[in-house]
């Protein structure tokens, strides 16, 4: 009975312990990182003019039947230049086809950028006014999606791709997705 009467004095310290636990977990997360809401959902459709052949269209359905990468990039974007070499390597080794969406960019700038640094993309669609970008929840270039053979988004990486992320996250997932086909 005496203990019951005293227990209310322990409430503050209990609440505080809970708070400390939340902080402890919160410390190693980046509060600004927005997780994609698209994981395991069908990739939104798009129908964009191709960068190098403006008369033709790149559609989301073009990616069906294979595991592929969809990379959002722009010639103005510093992070895109950082990851470019890695994309070139992936394209050279032919691990997966890379489709590009040229985001909020000037067409001639984009073409000369590819001429200068090389073109890792199987095909590039132009989204100058950020319609497709908004449909994909893009909030900054570069962003890279893994899309499986039936057109579902399986993974999203925000920011430049690095070797570590490629080998630790992308390659295992791509291998297992390929095995599913």
């Amino acid at each position, binding site marked *: 009975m005496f203990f019951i*009467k*005293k227990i209310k*004095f*322990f409430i*503050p*310290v209990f609440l*505080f*312990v809970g*708070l*400390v*636990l*939340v*902080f*402890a*977990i*919160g*410390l*190693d*997360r980046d*509060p*600004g*990182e*927005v*997780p994609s809401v698209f994981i395991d959902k069908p990739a939104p459709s798009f129908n964009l003019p191709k960068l190098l052949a403006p008369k033709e269209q790149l559609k989301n359905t073009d990616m069906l039947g294979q595991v592929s990468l969809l990379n959002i990039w722009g010639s103005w974007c510093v992070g895109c230049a950082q990851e470019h070499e890695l994309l070139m390597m992936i394209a050279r080794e032919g691990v997966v086809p890379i489709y590009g969406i040229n985001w909020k960019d000037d067409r001639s700038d984009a073409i000369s950028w590819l001429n200068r640094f090389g073109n890792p993309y199987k095909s590039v669609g132009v989204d100058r006014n950020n319609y497709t970008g908004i449909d994909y929840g893009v909030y900054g270039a570069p962003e890279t999606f893994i899309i499986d053979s039936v057109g579902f988004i399986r993974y999203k990486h925000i920011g430049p791709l690095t070797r570590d992320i490629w080998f630790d996250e992308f390659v295992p997932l791509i291998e297992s997705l390929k095995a599913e086909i």
Partner: protein
Amino acid sequence: MIPEIGQLCLVIALCFALVQFILPMVGFWKKNIILGEVAKPSAHAQVLFLLLAFICLTVSFLADDFSVLYVANNSNTALPTPFKVAAVWGAHEGSLLLWSFILAIWSSAVAVFSKSLPREIVSLVLAVMGAIAIGFMLFILLTSNPFERLYPIPIDGGDLNPLLQDFALIIHPPMLYVGYVGFSVAFAFAVAAMMTGNLDQKWARWTRPWTTTAWLFLTLGIALGSWWAYYELGWGGWWFWDPVENAAFMPWLAGTALIHSLAVTEKRGLFKSSTLLLAIGAFSLSLLGTFLVRSGVLVSVHAFASDPARGLFILVFLALVIGVSLSLYAWRAPTLISNVGFKFFSRETFILINNLLLVIATAVILLGTLGPLVFTALDLGTISVGPQYFEIVFLLPMIPLVLMVGLGMHVSWRSMQPNSLLRRLYLPALLSIIVGILAPWWFFGASSFLTAIGIIVGVWTILSALLDPIRRVFGKINRISRSAVAMQVAHLGLGMVVLGITVTSAFSIETDVGLKPGQSSTIKGYNFRFEGIRETFGPNYQATQGVFAVSKNGEDYTEMRPEKRIYRVRTNPMTEAAIEANWGRDLFIALGEPLGDGAWSLRLQYKPLIRFIWLGCLVMALAGLLSISDPRYRKS
């Protein structure tokens, strides 16, 4: 050489803090009062060496010594001298040094002004403050050393963040810190009371002036911050419910509750355990504020460069200080309960309601501030909690609270007959209801339920606060004690703030327009004619200045010049709004973007009664000053 001297001073100050903490604690344990006597001189020595460290850092800034990393990051040869001084606390490392310095000043002040207190209590209070000082100085030395050198030495510095190059921002952080840190005194008194098991009305009388002083600085600090945000951030808002603002507002709410609770403890020997809890709470929330700003667990505009290592240190420190004091509370508070009662219609009841509602308001803000963090920690997704949430949930406890204030301040202690009070208050109540319903229609031609409520409550609080002084003038009562006057003035300030917030939220006019030179736009009878753009220069920036001729009802009224500045080193553009203020309203112009053809996009605003928000805070702070000047605190 000078930075090294500064660092050495910091280490020496840390040693004195260790002495100030350990010896009195041992003395308390061993019942040896002599050991406690070292606390006072240690506190004085600590403040001296921290002052020296602070001077050393200031000298490095004034001498443009860019071999010091912190100076190189936050100053520049072209930075005007006053801002060089302000830059000392303009970023993380220096602001912590200021924090420690202010804490030392508070300890030293306690040592000086506590001649009438039992020696045992004073040395315990100082020991607790010493413990906090140790934590902060270790934090500086281990993770955030402002004296760290940089090699190779850059030719020029990175400049102070342009947002901070402003008068209000020179004094805002020190004010805020004096408030935050000041709650450590109440906290230390609470811990000392729990350790000695001695919490009587005398204890409450010692604690009260310290708490009020801290609270008054915090009030000023918050008001300054809000004023700064209003004229500097460029879009005319005065409160954003940003995590950092909340971090300052929560201790303020808890501190306000503490002040009320202390009054009951002093007058009636009641509410002892809630006084203790609020004293712990107010300071814990201050520490939490420091943690939130610096650890990077929340996204904020004002956040300092964040670093998880720092976050971890603060978390451990926080867990120690708050955890130990709350455990002590759980252990000792049950033994300190008094057996005094009060009737339903009594001041005690009203203060109880006040405190419960203030605590609910604090808890709600804490919930909204930490909500996103809890969601990520529990893997429930990333969410945002913004102004639209806080405005609703904060009003929930606040409307009944403010309604109660006007009544509560006239109710007497112990018990009272409601009838006698109603006879005195029905006139002001009636008057405020009439004003609340009619005034919005009269002045602005519109109203709403919430607006009417806000104005009624604001006017009611103001009239109620002025009632006794008016009755005094007409000779109906003889004299009002200093503490009663202070209480009335504080509530007068509150009424002004409520009125200001209500009117400015309900009737501000804001238009975004594009104007070419020669074109004009009119709001609320004021005509703004865009005369053109010209280029000007400041010491470390260049500016595009828009010139506007303002006329009122066809007559020339004034000229306003909003600017857009580009600072040379940190090249982001800054909007310097032009503001024309008087008691009744502010006119506000901010320059947007060029639209081509000489046209510019502009934001024009008319903000009625917005000054009342800050004036009200000033009045509240003044009330704090009145309260601590009460001679009864100086009697032994």
